[in-house]
């Protein structure tokens, strides 16, 4: 279990307890947190669960991107070097305290 903080572009904060094994994207969807669309349902086939990891320490601590994630991020709205697809971030106790920022929009 990990406590994940989701911050919308307008600054609204949401906190959710997300079970291990779920993705950060699923944590948002299951808790009705706005700002993450996840059109493809978690298949790394769209780029609508895009988040920023603003804390550099956290960004480095996350599991590395698999092949294909950066390719999808090219097609996201305003990708940056600290961008991730939240469907690829699998929750474990290690992610307790993670904060993700949502972009202005997903599509």
């Amino acid at each position: 279990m990990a406590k994940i903080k989701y911050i919308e572009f307008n600054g609204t904060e949401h906190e959710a307890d997300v079970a291990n094994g779920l993705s950060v994207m699923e944590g948002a969807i299951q808790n009705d947190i706005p700002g993450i669309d996840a059109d493809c349902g978690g298949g790394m086939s769209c780029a609508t669960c895009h988040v920023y990891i603003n804390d550099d320490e956290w960004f480095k601590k996350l599991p590395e991107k698999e092949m294909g994630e950066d390719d999808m991020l090219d097609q996201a709205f305003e990708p940056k070097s600290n961008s991730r697809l939240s469907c690829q971030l699998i929750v474990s106790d290690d992610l307790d305290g993670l904060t993700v920022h949502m972009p202005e929009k997903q599509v």
Partner: protein
Amino acid sequence: MIKTDVVIIGAGPTGLFCAHQLGIIGLKCEIVDNLDKIGGQCIELYPDKPIYDIPAVPKCTGEELTNNLIKQIKPFNFNFHLSDRVQKLKNENNKWLVKTLNGKEFETPNIVIAGGVGSFEPRKFPTKSAEKYDGKSVLYSIKDKTIFKDKSVVIFGGGDSALDWAIELSNSSKVTLVHRRDEFRGAPASVQKIKELSDNKTIDLITKYSIKDVKGNGSIESVEIKSESGESKVIKADYVLGFFGLIMQLGPIAEWGLNLDKKTIPVNTENFETNKKGIFAIGDICTYPGKLKLILSGFHEGALAARGCFKYARPDEKYRFEFTTASSTIKDRLGVKE
């Protein structure tokens, strides 16, 4: 005006198999899709990626699945209306009048929405200032490449479309290619070619920059780009091209008075009808308790929706359940000779 029993919106696997089920029970349909090819997400997003959960097919690609579905409905000779989009619906005397973007009109008692998560559209620049040049000098696809001759063209993107056009246009235009990172996702041969063209100064290659602003007065004069650390550059430009892949938009479906739950349409699971009589929704776009976004679920939903359509298409007939193995009527429809 084309009169038919069913208009299917979406030529992905779910729409195709629903068409098959309609053919089996003796109904006609017309299929509309805004892509220029049949197959939906399977063909647009993952033609080469293997799928492992189609019942009785241990492994197939999106393209193979699509080709087999096309083969399966071939006996029925249904019409496809590709590169077109259903725009307007109107109900008149229990019939739906359907109008497409390209001006086609259908009259039908049934509409099956098998639209996935909406229609594919190019992702556009986030920059507000790019909007007023959209379609004139800010472009997301190329219809006539001769307009770029001897012009300054700034291309954004790192996939095959961006690389291929940068290579192609470098013969007759001044090309600058801008991408947000050093790696490209295009074919290795194209990436190699871009590096060569950059080394010999045929094109300007700028990485780790993205668009900031489009400047001009009536027509575009320049484009300003920014790096993440805040540096910016101004590049002279007559045309600005963006190739960031496709996004999915619900589009006109949102305006038809259907109940919506986020981007999906609630249905009843008896026949997959929506809150509007004669409008059904199947596949990724529909929702109900326990919904799985699997192709196999879409097949099941399409089979039941087809029976739902029968009631309105043949109000004076009683639907009779038959197996394809045993029914001579079905074999006739399939053109099977024994």
